[in-house]
């Protein structure tokens, strides 16, 4: 991987923080953006801006074509043949809320159960908890094994006749652990239970083929995939594309409207009321093209190499405690310095220009399970290098010394 060339494509990475080179290791929170993505936004507003889907004029047609071409590009990236299965949303959180509010209308009944996992981000807990509280439903949780991986045997036992959905993360944002999707899928299919896959942390780091995985729902965010904030997607399989009730409605979703009755369109547009985030959707497609230009498997391999290299060096430091150490994981390492607060370590590392995330990472139930207030998280992207890890380790040692 030619990281030198890749880095030159990310304007922000040339920046100094506290007179040190920026070492950006907070990619699980959001990735930096390549020139192509930044230019896509600027180009849209300077050359193609118009509202889409309804206009008869040239600019509107151009904008509509760019927008719908983005749906095709993104659909193809995920292995889909029907691009209508890609619904544009403001991101993962919005997508899960659309599913939760839609399912709550008719499909979910009081007393029903939804299975989540201990690894979930708050955004894949709270919409379901809101449903459970408002409608008398129940949440069940797949526990962790000693090595912090999910206990799939217990998943089987959690299933009852009341189980209506399994909603799990593809990759844990706090620990980087990759869920064994084949196991979840086999159990879900065997019991004919729909399942939702939270791909916020997998889509940026590995090949994801939705035609093969075949979940009922898949969600992810553009800004974690080198794209802009405020854009993301909801994938629905054919059943839910037709059947999922919409919770929000408005212009652009209809065939005919009268004060007595409205007939809605079919396909993705039914879920996209109002003027969508056109510029950012187009930039999202550009980010997807950028990743495909490098290759998702290549990105995965590069980040794997960085994780293994960093883990190996960190294992040599007796003051470090790491969580969720496994052979196969996406580009995340979660750790603490023994007897030191994550906040102190993060604050001092920032002085050396190193951007890390500290705290609970929006996974408070997981932190409680690990018995910690929070962790320090290092997360990689395609532009990170071995040299940056060496610098990170050197400064980590120094910070440990300063604090002790």
């Amino acid at each position, binding site marked *: 991987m030619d990281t030198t060339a890749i880095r030159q494509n990310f304007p922000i990475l040339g920046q100094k923080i506290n007179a040190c080179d920026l070492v950006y290791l907070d990619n699980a929170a959001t990735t930096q953006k390549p020139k192509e993505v930044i230019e896509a936004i600027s180009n849209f507003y300077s050359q193609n801006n118009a509202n889409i889907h309804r206009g008869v004029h040239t600019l509107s047609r151009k904008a509509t074509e760019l927008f719908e071409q983005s749906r095709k590009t993104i659909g193809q990236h995920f292995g889909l043949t029907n691009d209508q299965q890609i619904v544009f949303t403001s991101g993962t959180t919005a997508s899960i809320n659309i599913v939760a509010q839609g399912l709550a209308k008719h499909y979910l009944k009081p007393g029903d159960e939804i299975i989540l996992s201990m690894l979930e981000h708050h955004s894949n807990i709270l919409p379901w908890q809101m449903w459970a509280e408002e409608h008398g439903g129940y949440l069940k949780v797949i526990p962790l094994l000693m090595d912090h991986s999910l206990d799939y045997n217990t998943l089987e036992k959690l299933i009852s006749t009341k189980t209506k959905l399994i909603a799990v993360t593809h990759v844990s944002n706090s620990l980087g652990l990759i869920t064994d999707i084949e196991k979840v899928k086999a159990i879900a299919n065997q019991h004919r239970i729909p399942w939702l896959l939270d791909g916020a942390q997998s889509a940026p780091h590995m090949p994801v083929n939705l035609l093969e995985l075949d979940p009922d729902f898949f969600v992810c965010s553009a800004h974690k995939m080198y794209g802009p904030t405020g854009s993301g997607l909801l994938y629905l399989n054919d059943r839910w594309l037709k059947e999922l009730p919409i919770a929000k409605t408005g212009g652009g979703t209809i065939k005919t409207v009268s004060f007595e009755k409205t007939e809605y369109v079919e396909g993705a547009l039914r879920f996209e009321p109002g003027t969508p985030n056109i510029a950012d959707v187009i930039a999202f497609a550009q980010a997807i093209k950028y990743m495909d230009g490098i290759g998702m498997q290549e990105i995965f391999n590069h980040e794997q190499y960085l994780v293994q290299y960093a883990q190996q060096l960190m294992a040599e430091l007796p003051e470090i405690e790491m969580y969720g150490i496994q052979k196969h994981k996406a580009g995340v390492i979660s750790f603490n310095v023994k007897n030191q*607060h994550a*906040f102190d370590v993060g604050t*001092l590392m920032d002085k050396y220009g190193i951007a890390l995330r500290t*705290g609970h990472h929006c996974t408070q139930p997981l932190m409680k399970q690990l018995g910690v*207030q929070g962790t320090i998280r290092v997360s990689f992207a395609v532009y990170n290098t071995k040299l940056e890890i060496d610098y990170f380790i050197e400064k980590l040692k120094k910070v440990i010394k300063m*604090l002790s």
Partner: protein
Amino acid sequence: MSIEEIEKEIIEEFDFFGDDWESKYEHLIELGKSLPLISADLKTDERIIQGCQSRVWLNANYDDGEMIYTADSDAIITKGMIALLIRVLSHQKPKDVLQANLTFIDQIGLKEHLSPTRANGLLSMVNQMKKEALKSI
């Protein structure tokens, strides 16, 4: 000493480090370690300042015309900052606490610790200290 006099004293103390942030932070860490702990029975959930990465406990008393603050945190850098804030605001009249601008924090180059990211709870702590002072007027 007045709030302004103490602030001036702290600025002079930190001037000694110049641009050497490492020594400055080592000093802050030392200050954190030397902070007299809040007594254990006061470290209750009611005294915790919520929503922050590093937890901060604050206790305030009004005694003989002065505010008396004690506090603690589980993060040492936060504790160092608390030590400075207590040095400035404790044993001052409630009216003076309310009017304190605390510009010294900017002048000693530690303004980032009062940023509104809520990461360390110091901004909330200052607000809480002022609220307690207001109650005593």
